[in-house]
């Protein structure tokens, strides 16, 4: 399958990328690893007139400690997240989740910014960043703004990112040895989660349980009130609205959410 024709621009700087976005508006898409965008273009779910390649902007890539936070550039690849000593020490749930994305070839190309901007409710990184309480750094022609991850995902494949803005970095808190767990239920290697759960220091987030990654608020409230992981996990599906598809109906997804949340709260990772 061959994508529809488009013009290809290489951004020389963030300012250049912003100028190109301003010029082409909603007809333009940013291109980094392209592992969400190109498959959509091949089946004509996306047909941008212009692709703006931001992978040559080295300032958008890399993982650094900044006080009590870790700053991750938007074009940092999944493979780099998975092997990062900083993340393994201070945000191990994110290093672990990045190693669950797709397969090695995909992790050599896909980026954290691309995954978050794509906002697939079943993907590994959005749900993990929700559990971490991350902050999304956005750069626009008017300057920078920060969006809390709880406000970033606005619908299926929809975010608070404007068409003239660049997702430039993700900030996550340094959690050191705080408890965490990660569960991803799939039937085949390199599938998306039928249900996924990320738990980190009392925050619990669910993948594939609605149109966006969702906090398991009832579970979190129960944990704060001193409930056991087993009792708190029994509330994991409260307030969710899972869909039904080829893989699972809604009841099965709710069951999976409860079981996987218990396992994640027990610190299990596989």
């Amino acid at each position: 399958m061959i994508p529809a024709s488009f013009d290809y621009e290489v951004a020389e700087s963030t300012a250049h990328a912003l100028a190109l976005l301003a010029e082409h508006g909603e007809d333009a898409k940013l291109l980094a690893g392209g592992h969400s965008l190109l498959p959509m273009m091949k089946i004509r779910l996306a047909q941008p007139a212009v692709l703006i390649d931001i992978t040559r902007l080295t300032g958008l890539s890399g993982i650094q400690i900044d006080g009590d936070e870790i700053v991750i550039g938007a074009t940092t690849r999944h493979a780099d997240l998975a092997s990062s000593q900083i993340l393994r020490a201070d945000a191990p749930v994110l290093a672990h989740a990045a190693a669950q994305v797709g397969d090695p070839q995909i992790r050599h190309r896909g980026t954290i910014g691309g995954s978050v901007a794509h906002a697939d409710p079943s993907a590994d990184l959005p749900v993990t960043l929700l559990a971490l309480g991350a902050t999304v750094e956005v750069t626009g022609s008017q300057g920078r703004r920060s969006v809390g991850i709880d406000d970033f995902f606005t619908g299926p494949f929809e975010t608070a990112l404007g068409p003239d803005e660049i997702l430039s970095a993700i900030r996550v808190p340094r959690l050191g040895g705080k408890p965490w767990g990660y569960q991803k239920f799939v039937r085949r290697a390199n599938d998306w989660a039928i249900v996924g759960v990320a738990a980190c220091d009392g925050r619990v987030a669910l993948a594939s349980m609605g149109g966006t990654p969702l906090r398991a608020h009832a579970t979190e409230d129960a944990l704060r009130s001193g409930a056991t992981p087993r009792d708190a996990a029994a509330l994991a599906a409260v307030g969710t609205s899972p869909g039904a598809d080829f893989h699972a109906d809604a009841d099965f997804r709710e069951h999976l959410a409860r079981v996987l949340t218990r396992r994640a709260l027990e610190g299990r990772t596989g």
Partner: protein
Amino acid sequence: MTEIKLTVNGATRNDEVEPRLLLVHYLRETLGLRAANVGCDTTSCGACTVLLDGESVKSCTVLAVQASGRAVTTAEGAVNRDGTLGHVQQAFREEHGLQCGFCTPGMVMAVTSLLAENPDPTEQEVREGLEGNFCRCTGYHNIVRAALNAAAKLRAANDDATSGKAPSDGEVAA
């Protein structure tokens, strides 16, 4: 049309391409390098796996323009300079790591990338490292044996190189 400049199996290439041209089609149709196959065309099966700057990628989901300025290696480039099979290819031959052969070029490049990152993998690490490559003949056991055999060959070659014995010839990304 957009100008790209890259190296493919060590040779410098300059070409004018449509931006929408996929890397796998550039390799197969523009350059006539037919090792990388188009299987699923959806980033799943791994038959189109090549190395980009030494790392495995699925060339059905990379634009040729994205490879500009970088080094691409295909299974054609995995042979030694004298035309004999490289270590990974030789290991696939010895272990009968193929049946119909369609997935093999992608498997060879995925194994090459895996062993560059992890020169001494366990069997489980090989299986997980090849999760992006499908063999529809289901010949996985021999493919895993081939990867472990290749790992041993490459480690021995590197030991020889560091101890001053005859250098290994031409093996890519090892």
